[in-house]
């Protein structure tokens, strides 16, 4: 099956674990590319390539500060992903909330058995 290009949208861009790692790092604040290279333990061309993909989908912005280029996170394109996952998460929350009730009943039944012993 043909895969969508990584640059189509944020969904594809964050499918790559290294790019998610870069977003995590940038969520703590702006960083120059050398910093990311050091933390990730990747070669600079690889990091630059990931940053380019992230920039193309608008997840990362860049600005010049003196002689350095500072990369920063723009989380807004992640919202549709968050919303998409949130619906699925809600569905499991409904199930687990019901399971909580089952567990309370089981605990209560055990407590009763203990008193009967």
């Amino acid at each position, binding site marked *: *099956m043909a895969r969508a290009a990584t640059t189509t949208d944020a969904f594809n861009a964050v499918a790559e674990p290294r790019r998610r790692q870069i977003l995590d790092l940038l969520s703590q604040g702006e960083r120059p590319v050398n910093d990311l290279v050091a933390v990730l333990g990747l070669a600079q061309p690889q990091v630059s390539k990931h940053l380019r993909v992230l920039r193309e989908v608008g997840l990362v912005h860049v600005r010049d500060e003196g002689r350095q280029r500072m990369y920063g996170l723009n989380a807004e394109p992640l919202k549709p992903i968050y919303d998409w996952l949130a619906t*699925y998460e809600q569905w*499991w929350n409904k199930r687990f909330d019901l*399971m*909580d009730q089952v567990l309370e009943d*089981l605990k209560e039944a055990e407590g009763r058995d203990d008193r009967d012993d």
Partner: protein
Amino acid sequence: MTETTSGTAKVTLPADNQIMITRGFNAPKRLVWKAYTSPELIKRWWSGDRGTVTSAEVDLRVGGRWRYVMTANEGFEVAFRGEYREVFPEDRLVNTEVFEGIPDPDDHAGLITVSFAEKDGRTHMEMLCEYRDRADRDAVVSSGMEAGMQESLDHLEQVAVSLS
């Protein structure tokens, strides 16, 4: 009234073809295992707020099969089934999961690994769901929206609005 809310489920996507669901329960794992694997108890929670579980068959042994059926609020039937691959009571359960409502369902089976860890009388559950590829994984995550629930349609509309 007893405090029943012990946390909210957290859903993450650790890899292209995976979904990870974690949740804490305010009960020992012995009871969580019981609630998770006993047919009469599965009937009380598995359908969430989407319908009523009409059948839960569980043959809890390696190679044994399971099948859950629910009647959705909209009236149609939804059935899942699979086979147990690993059964370590109270600790770990590995099973396949097939949604019967799609063409060639067995080609799109998921592998579900659930583990329970207990601490101070509470249980932490991790459920790792692995699929053939990203398309299958995404179809599972999107399944809530495809169920035709108004809630989801409203939600989809919000997403569309936020994108415009």
